[in-house]
Every structure is written in C-alpha cells, then in structure tokens.
C-alpha cells in the first residue's frame, strides 16, 4: 500500500518534471529565418536546456542531445497567435459589461486537441483570450503549447505580462444593451463603461493610497477600503501593469478608445481584429497602439462590411506594429499561410510578412525579449518547414517548444488525444457547416435563444 502511494507520488512528480522539462537539441544545416537578424543559410541552431545557446555553422551536439537534420528546410521561430480561444473550457463571463475580475487562466484545458493541431501548424504559443461579450472582459492567459501535460499550470507562460480583453461595438451592445436591457446599447454607452470604470478605479486607488499613507500614523482610526478584485484589476491597468487587448472593428470606436486611454494615461494598448484599423492607421501609429488582425475575414457581420484584406499591409506601412491572428481553432493551423496573404494583398516582403506571426505578436504580448525570433538567449521555440513558410507548398515538419519536439510530422501517430472519452459511443463528426466564426461570442448563445 505504502509502495502504491509512493509510486503514485513518483508518477505525479515525474509528470510534473516532464512538463517542466527543457530540451537540448541541435537543428543542423537549415535555412534559418531569424526574423530580427536576417537569413542564415546552411546554419545550425543549438538549443540547450530550453534556450537558444548558439546559432552558427558546424555546431557540435552535446552528448545525448537529439539532432534534427534540417537540410533543405526552413527554420523559423515558433509561430505566435495573439488571439485564440483554444485550450479554454470557458470563454465568456457574459454577466456584466465589466468582468475584469475573472481570468481565462482559471479555465485552461490542457486536453484540447486544438493545441496539438496548432503545433502541427508551427504555432508554439497563443494568447488564450476571454471573449468579447463585455466592454471590459476578463483577463487572458499567454500559454505555451506544451501538449501532453494534464496540468493546466504547465501550459502557462510564467512571467508573461498580464493582459485583459476589452470589446467594442456590436458584441457588448448586443449582449448587454439588446440582450439584458442595460448600458451599453450603443457605442456611446461603451465609452461610458470605460470612463465610469476607470474613474471608479482611480477613486479606489486614491482610497487605498490614503489609507496606506495614514495607517501607520499615530492615532489613526480609519479602516481599510473594501478590497475589490474588479477595481484592483482596473487599477492595475491604470498603473500600466496590464496590457489591454481590445476587440474592435470600426475606425470611430478604435479612435474613441485611444482618446479614453489618453485621458487616463494608459499606454499599453493592442487592438484586436481592428478591421477598420487601416482607416486610422496614422492615429494608431502616433499613439503607439498595436494591431492584431485577420488576414482576410470580412462581411460576416455588419461592422466588418467596410473592410479590406489590405488592412495588415496598410497598418504595417503606416508603422503600426501588426500581427495576424486566428481567433479560430481552424485558422490557427495555418497562420503561415494567412501571413502570406499580405503578399497577395499589398506585396509585403518576406521579412515583414513573417514578422506578423512571430516578433510582432510577441511585442503585443510583451514577451518579445523571450520569444518571437531566433536569437541567442531566447527560448527554444522553433518551427521547421519543408518549403518556404510563405509558400502554399509549405509543410510544417517539426515544432519545438522549449527545446522539446512537440510535433514531428513523420513520427507522430494519427490519434493524439490525451483523454479519449470512454463513454462516447457515437462518433462526433463535425459537419462542415459548423462554422467557427465568432468564437469570441461562445457561451453567450443562451441570451439569443428567443
């Protein structure tokens, strides 16, 4: 019995260790697309204990290290998706226009097969976002695709900056204004939600500041303000500790949020989707706001009817730090192809097109000092392609996270589920008509079933 407990304990420890494991790996003779430092032909990338130790030629593999022969292949940084909902068991806390207190980090699902399928598209890291039902939604989680672990904590990228989801336009006004009959029903109301919330947070902070300043004074008789996680979070935004990632479409609402942020001294602002970002590209650039866009999605709802697939190019050429995201468990599997569409729509050069799915999303998540390019000292997240990743003939061959090979096209079995449901008898065949649009609005269907 004791032995059983002991082995169970050992198993637990080994599961933990395995997930935290950092790999040592030599990738040889590839065409290395560093993103930040040009292209290095016939070069090696040595990853030691999960970090890129050296990029060069004729590198020796440490004893016992795995070696990948990448001759004739392209080696690039692991692809980063700045907008995704994979690996989440809940997306929208659609119960109030402001839910800054909740966090998708509490709903991470490491069993989601979509993580593996994203890896099979070269994606090593994603931003697991709250949905867009609320003007101020929940906090989001930046996750690394360490597929195979059953511990949600192991997916989290420790030390990544905190982020929060905001949303403008049709979704919050539909859910709360039309759905619940409360503000916001219009884009005017959405602005009001932000101004109210930040003003309350300012008062909250002032209350605490006053209390903290006086509490140790002799004869102080006051009590601490009531602790409020929602206001704490909003205060952290005002202090610059949390990056806003705001679901947005129309130029006017994008402009509005920039004005609000200016008024409250908020600088860390990334717009998501931002289909009409191209219309206010000079203003975005001046503010220093960034943009994470679809390659070509449009017309699925009215607020994206006046958009263009040239959005990413126009934003990039106007010096807005731009990324291409998926917001879809389908699209996340071929972000390299989505980035290539900027060459159809605006003829972006290779380096700029690849930046859209590597260093730029890393900047938007505040992790560009750790990932997003192949540089010595950065984390060993790598995607290896047969054919250039921007070509339609590109095939992801290996995907590596922290030096661990998580995807190997030649050697992975077909069934990669971690936990098959033993009770499921009838096959789940996902009809093609089940479109993935608006995953951002998942968990809000109950509001519209009448």
């Amino acid at each position, binding site marked *: 019995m004791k032995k059983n407990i002991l082995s169970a304990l050992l198993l637990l420890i080994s599961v933990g260790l395995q997930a935290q494991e950092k790999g040592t790996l030599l990738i040889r003779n590839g065409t290395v697309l560093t993103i930040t430092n040009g292209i290095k032909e016939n070069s090696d990338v040595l990853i030691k204990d999960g970090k890129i130790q050296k990029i060069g030629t004729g590198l020796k593999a440490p004893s016992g290290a795995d070696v990948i022969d990448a001759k004739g292949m392209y080696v690039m940084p692991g692809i980063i998706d700045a907008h995704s909902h994979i690996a989440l068991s809940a997306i929208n806390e659609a119960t109030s226009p402001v839910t800054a207190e909740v966090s998708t980090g509490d709903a991470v699902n490491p069993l989601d097969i979509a993580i593996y399928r994203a890896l099979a598209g070269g994606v090593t890291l994603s931003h697991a976002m709250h949905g867009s039902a609320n003007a101020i939604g929940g906090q989001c989680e930046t996750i690394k695709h360490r597929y195979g672990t059953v511990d949600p904590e192991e997916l989290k990228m420790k030390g990544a900056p905190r982020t929060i989801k905001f949303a403008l336009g049709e979704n919050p006004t539909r859910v709360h204004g039309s759905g619940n009959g409360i503000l916001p029903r219009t884009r005017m109301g959405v602005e009001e939600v932000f101004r109210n919330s930040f003003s309350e947070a300012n008062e909250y902070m002032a209350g605490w500041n006053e209390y903290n300043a006086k509490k140790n004074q002799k004869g102080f008789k006051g009590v601490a303000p009531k602790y409020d996680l929602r206001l704490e979070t909003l205060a952290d935004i005002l202090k610059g500790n949390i990056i806003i990632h705001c679901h947005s479409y129309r130029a006017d609402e994008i402009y509005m949020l920039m004005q609000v942020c200016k008024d409250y001294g908020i600088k860390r602002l990334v717009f998501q989707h931002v289909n009409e970002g191209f219309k206010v590209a000079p203003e975005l650039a001046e503010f220093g706001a960034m943009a994470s866009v679809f390659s070509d999605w449009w017309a699925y709802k009215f607020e994206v*009817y006046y958009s263009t697939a040239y959005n990413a190019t126009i934003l990039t050429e106007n010096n807005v730090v731009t990324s291409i995201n998926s917001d879809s468990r389908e699209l996340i599997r071929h972000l390299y192809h989505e980035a290539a569409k900027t060459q159809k729509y605006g003829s972006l050069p290779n380096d700029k097109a690849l930046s859209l799915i590597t260093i730029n999303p890393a900047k938007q998540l505040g992790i560009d000092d750790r990932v997003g390019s192949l540089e010595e000292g950065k984390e060993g997240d790598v995607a290896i392609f047969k054919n250039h990743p921007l070509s*339609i003939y590109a095939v992801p061959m290996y995907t590596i996270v922290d030096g661990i090979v998580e995807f190997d096209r030649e050697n992975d079995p077909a069934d990669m*589920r971690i936990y098959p449901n033993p009770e499921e008898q009838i096959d*789940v065949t996902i009809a093609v008509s089940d479109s993935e649009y608006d995953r951002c609005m998942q968990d809000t269907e109950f509001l519209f079933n009448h």
Partner: protein
Amino acid sequence: MKLIKNILCAGAVFMAFAGYAQSSKGKSGTFALTNATIETVTNGAIQNGTVVISEGKITAAGTAVTVPSGAEIIDCTGHVIYPGMIEGGSRLGLTEVNSDARTRDFSEIGEVIPQIQALTAVNPNSVLIPVTRVSGVTTSLALPSGGMFPGTAALINLHGYTPNQMYAGFKGIVLNYPQSGRRGRFDRRTDEEINEAAEKALKNLNETWGKLAEYHKLDSTITASGSNEKLDYYPEMEALLPVYRGEMTLLIEVNASNDIRSAIDWVKDKNLKVIFTGVSEGWRVAKELAEANIPVVTGPVLSVPTREYDRYDRPYANPGLMQKAGVKVAIRNNGAENVRNLPYDAGFAATYGMGREEALKAITINSAEIFGLEKELGSIEVGKIANLFIADGDVFETKTQVKHVFIAGWQIPMESRHTKLYDEFLERSPGVKK
C-alpha cells in the same frame, strides 16, 4: 426655373451617386492575349502562346495564332493564362452580411422545397462578387441549404446585371442526406436520440421518395395515354420528377463516412444523376465511392478534422486520397465572402498529396465535367466560353497576383471594395494633422 434647378440638382445627386457605384463597367470586344504561358488544363501548358477572345468565346489558343485586326492586344509576357476557377458550392450571391438575417437568402422555410430557386435570390450587385472574381474565380454554384430538399442550386458566372445574365448553364436539386452522427461538440443529444432522429430522417426521405415514385407513375400514365388530364398542382413533386427520371442532377450533401455508405446504398438502384457534395470523410470510404462511380465536390479543404482522433492533416489530404482511389473530385470553398480563397483550398490539397496538376483540374475541368459543362467551361480550348484569368505566377502560390479576368468574354474591372479602400487609405490624406 426652380423646377429646372431641382432637376439639375437631382441629376447632380444621381451623378454623384453613380460616381460611387460599386464597380466600373466590364468591357466586351475582341482581345488577343499574347506571349503567354497557357495552362490549358486539358492539353498541357503552351509556352509563348496566344489566346484570342471574341464574342464571348475563345476563338484561338496556341502558338501559331493570327491576331485578328482590331483586336485589343494584352501582352502577357511572363504571365500565365488559366481557365476561370469554378467554385463548386457556395453562398456567394445569396448572402451579403451573414449575421444579418435580412441579407441571408440561402435558407427557406420547409423540409421538402426542391422547387425553390437559388438563382432567383442571386444578387448580381453583391459587393462580395467583385471581391471574389478579381482573384480569378469566375464561376460559382449558388447553393441553397436548410431542410431535406432545400431547393435548386444554380451555377452562375460572376458578372452580369440579372440572374439570367449570370446563369452559367447548370442546375441541380440539393438533398441534405440524413445525418446519423453527432453534429459536433455542441450537439447535446443522447446516443438514443441521435439514432432515433437519424432513422426518422431516413424514413422521411424514403416516404418523400415513395410519393415521388407514385407521382412519376401517374404522370407517365397520363403522358402515355395521351390524355389532356393534368395532375393537381404539386410543385415539390414537379421539381423532383426530372431528378427521379435521371434527367436532372441531384446534389447529395453528405459528410460522415457511415452516411456516405448509406447514401451510396440509397442511390444504388435508382438510376439517378448524382453528385456527392461535402464528403469531408470521403477518404475513409474512397474505394466505395470510386466503385460506385459517383463524382464528388468536396470542401472546404481548410477545415478541422471531422473527428478528434483523426490525423490533423486529413482535411488537407482528403481530396487527394479520393482522387488517387479513382474518384472524380472537384474542390469547393463553400463560403461566401471568401470564396476568393478557392485556389488555397486546392493549393493545400495539392501540397498534401493531390499534386498541382490534379488540384488545378479539381477547380476547373473536373467541376465543369461534373456539372455537365465540359464543352463550355473548365479549360482553355477553342470554342469554349471565355472564362479565364491572367496571373503573374502559379495560381496556387499565395503571393501570386491576378492581372486580368475575363468572364464570358467580358474584361472585368480589376477592382473591388478591398482594392478601393487600399488605394484610398495606404497613404491617407490628411494624415494625423489636417
């Protein structure tokens, strides 16, 4: 005087409005596309060739071509001429802003409404159409959806001002074959409920078909007797009768492998003209499909595997696996606003096993053949309708630019909402400061 002023004003307003019309006009005439690589699809590639377009048709294609006098010459040096891509089943023209029910016209109320005509609801002035055709997709099957027999699909060319001007010569009646599986992750029904629903749906189908058989008998008897008697007005059966008699195509939408098997069985002794559409699990039953000699329009290729335990690349590989087993395969995008991505659906199929040549056929000649229009569409051949486009490279490569598009001989303006917004906003003026 005031009246004249008002009329002038109205005229000015009208002209201003016309200035904002969504597209410049197409241009017809005689065109000579010279010095091109011609991807004929049916006869290989011709280097340094010329294609002549006149009166809507391809009148010459090859290396020894005399350019007719008066022809407008388009120098295609370094460029490739492809036949127009054919989308095998989409909502293009039937929807505008998909979240807005007022702009959705693809799904009518009713389980058995085969007489409902998709062509009627095609909006020739949809903003989505120019966005699609400037990428080289010239033709699309407008597909109704919904109940068991949701209507009649119609093939349209993506240029024209009335549905009839756009009509490209093929109609087919859609049957959504009963689904026996769970419809997806959000299908909360129990196994029993699913089985019951599937049995009931198949029973409904067979009952409808039984009525049709009776209708056919009555109609045949009346015709044979030469009597003037007419059957009671029954538009559903009237629409289905040519399908029953094998004179009109039945497009059977079917995806799960069990359902495909069941559908193969269902059509077996019926002597129908049949196309299977969707067929996302065709790779599981490719041999049976080939043996049954049923052509397939499959897609979207860029979709998630139908089952959690399937290999991640099955949707990419599906068209190639069916084609290699001997199935005639066409590829569809199945969307609406992004049907322009059809070459990428085919491109992924090409990359994951189908190969370039077969993938190109799957969006050109195979589609034409499946729709019975192999004499009119799908390749660069003399006598065919001049649906073609000129690109600066491989049609599948994402970066490739489409330079010119011709639809039924009309030169299409290379502009859309997307290009116009690019032109206006790449270097916005005024910028930050006015």
